[in-house]
């Protein structure tokens, strides 16, 4: 694959921007992600923002919640586009994994990120 994968984080309010700032702070990588907020957007407006964020792709869309306007908009946008894949329940751990595996195909990178994010959810003893 010639172009490394782009990560597009689609969230409510400023969650996406905050996650990207954290990734940059930890890894020093500043060009892996683009934030999209659904603030003030209906579906058409969200589609326009996704198109701008994805560019020519390929990309993985990271969504904050497994339901709601961010997800319905992103899945509808990605439908029929094999250069895009979608992951829900975005967290910092999956983004950190993604940063260093952007040479994978979109679906493989999405599945890998989802697994990394799932592994990060624990209830350690205090």
């Amino acid at each position: 694959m010639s172009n490394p994968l782009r990560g597009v984080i689609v969230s409510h309010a400023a969650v996406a921007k905050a996650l990207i700032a954290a990734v940059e702070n930890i890894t020093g990588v500043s060009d892996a992600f683009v934030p999209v907020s659904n603030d003030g957007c209906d579906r058409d407006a969200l589609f326009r923002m996704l198109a701008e964020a994805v560019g020519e792709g390929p990309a993985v869309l990271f969504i904050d919640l497994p339901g709601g306007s961010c997800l319905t908009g992103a899945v509808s946008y990605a439908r029929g586009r094999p250069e895009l894949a979608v992951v829900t329940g975005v967290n910092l751990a999956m983004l950190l994994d993604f940063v260093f595996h952007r040479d994978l195909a979109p679906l493989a990178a999405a599945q890998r990120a989802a697994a990394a994010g799932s592994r990060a959810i624990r209830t350690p003893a205090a």
Partner: protein
Amino acid sequence: MSIKLFRIDDRLIHGQVVVGWGQPLHVGFIVLVDDAVRASPVEQELYRMGVPPHIDVIFASLAEAVAQLPEWDADPRPGIVLAGDIATLAALTENCHRVTRINVGGIHARPGRSERLRFVFLSDAEVEQLQRLAARGVEVTAQDVPTARPVPLAEFT
């Protein structure tokens, strides 16, 4: 009355509806009145994903909603009826006198609309639609989440 909220929200089923209103109202079901979603199993699956399993989601066309509203209203569980535009809920009220209050929860910016509230953008024609509802005795307020103040129609039109 089982239906606790008649809401206009162009994001349809999303966090404010399911969590913001759904939790305090203890809703047992959500009715989405939308002809396009009613015709699309794929869209329905997407909207179901955001709803906990203890809440039923009913997808209805406008015609189905007019016919079934009395049945939903007799359901012992609290419910929400949701539409993505003013015209759909206006049509529902014309055919059913049970609708006495409408919540404008989110109508976002598009060409031809101007900002009335942070979460309400309306064209002049849409303002007239809401005012006609009010003239028929329907109480119309704008309120995105339950903790916000319900803004009377006169204050945002």
